[in-house]
């Protein structure tokens, strides 16, 4: 496949927002995740690599050749964009075969290739559907098949699963990682979810306010965060997104959908925030009627405790519950959580 070297790519938008300089290199066959909160420049970076945004400076090398002047369609890139962007006027089959058609493939060969891809992504039964007749998860698979049709050398995935429910998302994460390793395709994966990044990456580049603040393997980031942002953003906790809705008794009240979580800090009411909650700071309350409503998504036994994944208003958090308690829960249970306010880190989103 291809080795990618991003050297000091940067872009300043007319409104003054500036992204970069970005430095990042990917080994052949490596999967690197760009992780960062909303607006941190993930999509912009990806679009510079794809060639849709002309960088103001820096260089971009594919296997040591500078591709800065190469138009997107000659870069041999497969891409799944944030909005999925399936072609609405075409069937699933036509979507997948689009690249083959414009490359002038024979019909027979196209059919064979599309069948192979749809087999690989288990969407064979959808080929004749119109794209408004498939679900969100199926749409993501179709978009992936479409991106892989011409055997690209580099795969760019922009939050491909952010709109899906947690179970399906984790399922697809696993699939995509497997596929990527099988094909050995160099991949840049974009997400704002820490757990997703940890689940599938060889290495993670953490972005904040337009620059990469640390790059490393999940372990390195977890063990040796180089700055406060990484420490807070990674810190072993689950990442939740919410909004400051009030203040009481010296604590912030942070709304996550209908639920409220208390945390320490001084951030103005109305601001959007990212929370990091450590698994050991969550307990499932037995007696009280107050607490954060959540539903159990999965229960996994680990050494000394159970790792329980919980869904709070559509966002996923991990809790570590000691053995004797943990075994009581099964997926689907509705529970109330107590989250200790000292265990919650809050970062204001810009």
């Amino acid at each position: 496949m291809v080795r990618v070297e991003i050297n000091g790519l940067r872009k300043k938008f007319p409104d003054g927002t500036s992204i970069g300089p970005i430095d990042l290199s990917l080994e052949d066959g490596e999967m690197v995740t760009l992780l960062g909160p909303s607006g941190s420049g993930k999509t912009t970076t990806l679009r510079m690599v794809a060639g849709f945004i002309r960088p103001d400076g820096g260089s971009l090398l594919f296997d040591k050749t500078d591709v800065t002047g190469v138009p997107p369609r000659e870069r041999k890139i497969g891409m799944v964009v944030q909005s999925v962007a399936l072609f609405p006027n075409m069937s699933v089959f036509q979507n997948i075969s689009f690249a083959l058609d414009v490359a002038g493939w024979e019909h027979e060969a196209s059919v064979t290739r599309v069948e192979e891809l749809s087999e690989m992504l288990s969407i064979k039964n959808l080929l004749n559907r119109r794209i408004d007749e498939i679900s969100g998860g199926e749409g993501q698979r179709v978009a992936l098949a479409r991106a892989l049709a011409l055997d690209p050398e580099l795969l760019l995935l922009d939050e491909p699963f952010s709109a899906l429910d947690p179970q399906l998302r984790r399922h697809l994460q696993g699939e995509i990682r497997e596929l990527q390793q099988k094909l050995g395709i160099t991949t840049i994966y974009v997400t704002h979810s820490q757990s997703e990044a940890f689940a599938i990456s060889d290495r993670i580049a953490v972005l904040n306010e337009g620059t990469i603040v640390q790059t490393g393997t999940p372990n390195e980031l977890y063990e040796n965060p180089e700055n406060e942002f990484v420490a807070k953003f990674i810190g072993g906790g689950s990442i939740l997104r919410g909004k400051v809705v009030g203040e009481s008794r010296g604590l912030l009240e942070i709304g996550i959908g209908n639920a409220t979580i208390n945390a320490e800090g001084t951030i103005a009411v109305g601001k959007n925030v990212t929370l990091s909650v450590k698994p050991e700071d969550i307990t499932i309350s037995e007696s009280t009627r107050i607490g954060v409503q959540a539903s159990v998504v999965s229960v996994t036994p680990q050494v000394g405790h159970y790792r329980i994944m919980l869904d709070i208003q559509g966002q996923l958090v991990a809790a570590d519950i000691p053995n004797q308690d943990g075994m009581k829960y099964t997926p689907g249970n509705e529970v109330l959580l107590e989250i200790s306010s000292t265990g919650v880190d809050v970062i204001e989103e810009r």
Partner: protein
Amino acid sequence: MNRNRLVEYAILSIPFVLLFVFLVLPVASVLFQGLVYGPGSTFFEVLDSVVTQRVVSFTFIQAIMSTILALLLGLPGAILFAKLRFKGKRYIRALLIVPFVLPPIVVVVGFLQMFGSGGIIDSLLMLIMGSQHSIIDFASGYVGIILAHAFYNIPLFLLIVSSALERLNPEIEEVAEILGATALQRFRRIILPHIRSAILAASILTFLFCFMSFPIVLALGEGSYMTIEVQIWNAFRFFDYGEASSLALIQILITLVLAYTYMKLGKDDKGASGPTAYSKTFPLSSLDASMKILAGVYLLLILLLSIGPMISIVRAAVWDPKTSLFSLEGFANLGDPTLGGGFVPLVNSLFYGSLATLFSLILGTIFAYTQRSRIRGLPSLTSMMVLLPLGVSAITLAYGLMITIAVPLGLSSNPWPLIVIAQTLIGVPFSARAIEIAMSKVDPALIEQADSLGASTLQRLFFVELPLIAPGLLVGAVFSFAMAIGEMSATIFLATPENFTLAITIYRDLAVRKFIEAGAASLLLVAICIIAFIVIEKFSENGYGGTL
């Protein structure tokens, strides 16, 4: 059902009753009387006649050709305006759209002055070639009619197609690009399918307008080119009610099919628009030299065709071709209160137009309201009723109003209320649409608040919603007013000399070669329309594209 509800239903039903009495009933009775026992030709005689066949085929052919020309000239513009950014784009685009609100008869004056024999281009050519005789005449006959129709309808393509293009999720095109599609392939396989229904919608509207065109064909066709509408008018003038009704029936059947298709199109427009973080435009400088030249030539051509006639009206207002002198006589005529002078028509135009605007706003508001009603079937009945005036021949309507209302009520000697009614009906589709758009933007939370305060639906409508939709009302008012003062077909049918409006005076002045009088009156109408347009432009936030 309590009393409030009853009152509410009564009010909501007003526009339906009015449209039934003043539109459906008159037209139906014309058809019925003409076909069943009217004097003159029978339906089959009309169908069989060579004249009818010639008129019908001319109507179709000119409408098709005008539509194709408007499409060819409008489509590049729509793409250009959606995709490129350049200095002054906003103003050029706005200028190109003005023609749509101009009265047809004013367009005729502008065309004669710009492209006609002895017009600006012709005079220039004569000067260059040193010729004493007129060299070109693009403002009469077939060519004139088609050019004028294209001029009129290019804005439709610009508006409808470019707004569809702007709704295309730019990531879709990017995906196609990264999958290897060239610009041409992307256009053919992604963009064209996406804008197909917009192109079709604009084409149908254009076809419809050209199909029913009256003043332009009457004035430029010189009696030898006639659309069905013109022939209906002729038939009435020669008292062949059978022929008039038969033609009106043929025309209505065709327009109903088109209108139905148009409404259908609006429903299945979905899919490609997605959440878009940015809309993608390119600077002019990103084009290569040949494309830049092409874009430049196109802009020049389209400006010449669209703006030329408007500017020429200034010359028409002060240049007297009979004396070959500049003069202000035309404007003096506008202040002349005697019979044949321009003052009475001016007052009539303003008076009828204002009343029509007021009524069409009231009807439009209630219609906009019923359009959002939860009562089953009411919204679709509303959209049908609202579009009806667009699909009915104005001449037929006028005759219908004459026989069902004026004659029984003894209004025929001074039928000015009917003129107001006809002009009101013509404005309703536009006012209802503008107001409905404004209403759909009102924050539902605010309306709920009004509910919880115990305000009844009607109080809510008048005290809470109306102030909120004031900009929409203004746009609707201005649109209705522009339509009303430009209306000529129904008005010319109904009016006695004391009811003449400026539009009619212009037509009559042209016929007796009082060019400068026609020019001055036209300039006044253009000025009114441009002011109207500026108001529309200013107050419709997302552009007026949606108003159509």
